[in-house]
């Protein structure tokens, strides 16, 4: 437990001191929401709630790609990581610290976005809808954490940022998080069921509508979780083998 907190500090503190991490992860979702989401949300509470959910889902993705993707790729190449492996600690405190840090940045990113929405838009969500949105995103984030871990262990540090963005931005668009799905080109709407971000969006939109999350999307996210867990374990093991031999 104390080691978990020790590791939480060495994961969270450098990220907080690094604008290259927290600007895209914490500020960009709120900034983009203010540019593109606040205008259409001024008068219609339904649209306001819908866009708030979309941009909240976008914020969650950033944590997966940048904390788990880019940061893991960078730390793998640091000699310090090898030194830490000689310290008497197992994998648990390291994993707990990564998850704790993700939760911390989730609270910061969503907190800022929701405060902005409260003042700029006509949203009229009840506390319970906010709670369902927060909970849906916390659970829905899991496959994207594993996708991030996959990228982190698969990519060399120098290409991690551009490649993480190549997943992050197109997936956000394809999933209908920037433009509502029914306004996307037909061909992209048809891709929807195969795009993990679309299912994350479905969970978020259900929350602001106050309806139960669609089972199909929960199932699909479950399938993506298993898939990305498998790729994460594959690339993690590949990294372990190359380090130990």
């Amino acid at each position, binding site marked *: 437990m104390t080691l978990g907190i020790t590791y939480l500090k060495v994961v969270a503190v450098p990220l907080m001191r690094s604008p290259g991490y927290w600007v895209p992860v914490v500020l960009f979702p709120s900034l983009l929401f203010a540019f593109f989401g606040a205008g259409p949300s001024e008068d219609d509470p339904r649209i306001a709630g819908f866009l708030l959910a979309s941009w909240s889902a976008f914020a969650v993705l950033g944590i997966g790609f940048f904390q788990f993707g880019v940061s893991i790729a960078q730390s793998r190449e640091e000699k310090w990581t090898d030194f830490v492996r*000689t310290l*008497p600690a197992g994998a648990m405190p390291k994993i707990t610290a990564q998850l704790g840090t993700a939760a911390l940045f989730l609270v910061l990113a969503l907190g800022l976005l929701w405060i902005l929405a409260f003042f700029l838009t006509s949203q009229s969500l009840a506390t319970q809808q906010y709670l369902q949105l927060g909970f849906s995103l916390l659970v829905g984030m899991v496959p994207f954490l594993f996708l991030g871990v996959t990228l982190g262990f698969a990519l060399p540090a120098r290409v991690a940022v551009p490649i993480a963005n190549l997943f992050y931005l197109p997936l956000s668009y394809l999933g209908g998080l920037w433009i509502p799905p029914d306004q996307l080109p037909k061909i992209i709407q048809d891709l929807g069921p195969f795009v993990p971000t679309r299912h994350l969006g479905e969970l978020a939109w259900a929350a602001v509508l106050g309806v139960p999350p669609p089972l199909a999307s929960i199932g699909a996210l479950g399938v993506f979780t298993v898939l990305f867990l498998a790729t994460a374990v594959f690339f993690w093991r590949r990294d372990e083998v190359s380090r130990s031999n």
Partner: protein
Amino acid sequence: MAIAAELCDVTVRYRSITALNCVSLQLNEGEALAMLGPNGAGKTTAIGLLTGLCKSRQGRALLFGQNPRLPEARGLIGVTPQEASFPINMKVGELLEFVRSHYPEPKSREEIIEAFGLTNLLDRFASRMSGGQQRNFAVALAFSGNPKVVFLDEPTTGLDIEARSKIWSYVRRYRDGGGTLLLTTHYIEEAEAIAARVILLNEGEIVEDSSVEEIKRRVNVRILKLTALRPPEIATASIQNREGDRYTLIASDADAAVRELVTAGHEFSDIEVLPASLEDAISIHWAPQNLRETGDK
């Protein structure tokens, strides 16, 4: 005496290169052992096995009888890696706390700060310190957990004399207080300053395991460079190299070699006597093909 760390017949290969070939060694509790050898001899791999960083294909590594890959087994050790580098955006004081908090009874923060002169560095970002300051801090971290065994992989490379002697005085105090030490180095002088026993590694094999005096006697060879019209063939030195009329000789006793050159009537000029590298010494005393060559002459 109890065995603190042990390699039992380990072999490690990286692709086609054999880093360690059937190596066995024992580090007793309270012992200070130096592992001496040129680059690529396998020193870092041996430390990697004992500190849980690498696995061996054959044989096994043990720390107090346990597998070093288990976190519990590493609770009594401290490590200074060969290349010190620190994560960006973390301060020296924070990293010291981070390492100390892994151990049940760490050294007091003040003792480490005092002993390694860190007082004015605590608020600095570790990755922005000078190379020498980073190395010094890396050694400090190895001792901060109050370990029973310390592994130092070329700890003073790139340090100035003052920083070096400060580190050595701390390491000696640790040794005199009953601490166990495994040190790797290129330099026999470093081994001599701290260790009683020396293991000489070459190309993944232990070629010698004896006292520091014995190894020093054999490692302390000299290189003679001189200009001569005909090859200066003498019994007390061997010709290593020739460029035009400039000859390079290796001798274990430079004085005797010079005396023989003179008494044998060799005409020479511009003689220089230089200390030989460890690689040169190994090539005289331990490499089998060279033994044969000198035997034939």
